[in-house]
């Protein structure tokens, strides 16, 4: 936790803040103490990066990594303008207008899976894609039309600009336009609303699932790690950390650290993501999937 992050620094105060930190022998790049790194953007990715930064700093005392939220758009804008060293994003830079994607270097650090989630009382635990599209486009308005209880459907959407919505829109709804519904930005709130509102349906990253809501299977396929790494379950996306040009110095050291086993094997899983290293398929910005 954070306590161990503070302790080593307390033991060797200030003196080494000017001197280069002792480099980890595994590291190809050497972190430089006098170069603070800022990683800004996606709030979904923030816990992972923040935890990784803490561990990294405690291993390389004297380095400074600041992790901030602000949203994927902010992250991409800031990294493109040079205001931040790393831009955290839920989506490909190519998908956003106004970002010089060719100047940015993509580091896919994790994969996030998403599931359609409903109030446990709807009486349904599987939907076909047609049914899901029917529900989200507003053609199906009562759960009994899909074999569930007689309750009205209440849609809980993400904002139009949200990366989660974009992924769900593209891979779960096949690009069909969602009907108007309640719109919430944060996963915690969405989960709360779905768990409390009869007939509510929405979508959440897998890390936010718990017993208060029910994750629905899509065409009989459960949203879990095994199905995602093979793309059997298609509703997933990368978490990206963009740099402007190839990274160097501490930035590179930090990105390397995140891609290393320590983070991929532990922190990524703990924060509810799927390690990008375990993926058996690859997907590009246009959505074309290739086997690795």
């Amino acid at each position: 936790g954070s306590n161990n992050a503070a302790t080593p620094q307390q033991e060797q105060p200030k003196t080494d803040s000017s001197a280069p930190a002792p480099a980890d022998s595994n590291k190809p790049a050497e972190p430089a103490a006098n170069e603070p790194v800022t990683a800004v953007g996606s709030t979904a990715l923030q816990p992972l990066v923040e935890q990784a930064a803490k561990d990294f700093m405690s291993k390389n005392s004297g380095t400074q990594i600041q992790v901030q939220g602000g949203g994927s758009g902010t992250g991409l804008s800031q990294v493109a303008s040079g205001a931040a060293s790393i831009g955290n994003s839920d989506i490909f830079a190519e998908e956003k207008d106004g970002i010089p994607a060719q100047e940015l270097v993509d580091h896919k650090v994790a994969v996030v899976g998403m599931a359609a989630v409903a109030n446990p009382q709807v009486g349904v635990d599987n939907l076909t894609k047609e049914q899901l599209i029917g529900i989200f486009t507003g053609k199906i308005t009562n759960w009994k039309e899909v074999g569930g209880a007689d309750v009205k459907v209440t849609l809980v959407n993400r904002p139009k600009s949200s990366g989660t919505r974009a992924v769900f829109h593209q891979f779960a709804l096949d690009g069909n336009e969602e009907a108007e519904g309640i719109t919430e930005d944060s996963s915690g709130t969405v989960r709360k609303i779905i768990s409390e509102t009869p007939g509510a349906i929405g979508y959440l990253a897998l890390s936010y699932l718990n017993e208060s809501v029910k994750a629905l299977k899509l065409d009989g396929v459960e949203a879990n790690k095994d199905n995602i790494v093979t793309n059997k379950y298609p509703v997933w996306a990368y978490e990206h950390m963009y740099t402007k040009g190839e990274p160097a110095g501490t930035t590179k050291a930090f990105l390397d650290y995140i891609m290393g086993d320590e983070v991929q094997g532990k922190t990524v899983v703990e924060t509810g993501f799927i390690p990008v290293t375990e993926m058996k398929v690859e997907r590009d910005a246009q959505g074309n999937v290739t086997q690795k």
Partner: protein
Amino acid sequence: MNRQGSDGMTMIEKNVGRQQHRLARDKSYLQSKLLKPNKKQSLENFFGKAIAMSCAALLLIAVISIIYFIASKGLSTFFVNQVSIVDFLTGLKWDPEGEPALFGAFSFILGSFLVTVLAALVAAPLGIGAAIFMNEIYPTFGKKFVKPVIELLVGIPSVVYGYVGLTVLVPFIRERFEVLGFSLLAGGLVLALMILPTITSVATDAIEAVPQDMRNAARALGATRWQTIWHVVLHGALPGCLTAIVLGMARAFGEALAVQMVIGNTSKLPESIFDPISTLTSAITLNMGNTIQGTAYNNALWSLALLLLLMSLFFIMILRILGRKKLDNR
């Protein structure tokens, strides 16, 4: 009269001497006092004025730069991205990433307007009523207990209001009226609660400022307490009470996080107060972080901010006119 003064002069001599001295002193003294450009005083006045003026100027600079910033960003929707202003204001469909992109913000405008008016309708009578209670009905209890509690509530962050609204108010509305719960009503009530302290404290100050003499005069004329309150106290405090309402409405208008949590954020026109709505602020907060600066989508959000600014300006104007009218009746 012929007692000896301490230095040997008689009283008369002393008096005359003093008078001569005084007169002689007076001439030069007076003229010097009058004409001496008193450096200290004028410097002091100069610096005082300079300090005060530069503070005001700084304020002006801040305001102008913010307005410039918002306006330049907000107007580029129309001048750079070529969105029609009329479509923007009256359009019912908001789909900035669709093909073609649609920027119809009418539902947000209506939502902000409705939720603010609802909040003011609830909070203004309550807040001013509480202010009257604290000053006129039960001052000891009011000032010692009610006022501090109300002031404390200003400090409660809007996220907490939003959270309480989400966990208490929304389920209550859902169960009581068998509707969704996320609604105009919930937003209005949460906002009313949030602006209540503002309205109450400002109205209290205004009521306190009415001179006690006025109350005495009315009571001495046999006016009941209520008549005194209605005709004299409220009459005198009216501009202050209007200010209180303006401040409250301004806060309601600009409030983002709390409203966003309870109104449902549906960009559809509401048919009743139980329907979910969307406001300008919620549209901004939900999307601002996810959009890229300089894109049409982002600019459109700034246009919403600009609209927000213009709409509060509109409210300020209305209330100013109202306030001036009432003042003339004095």
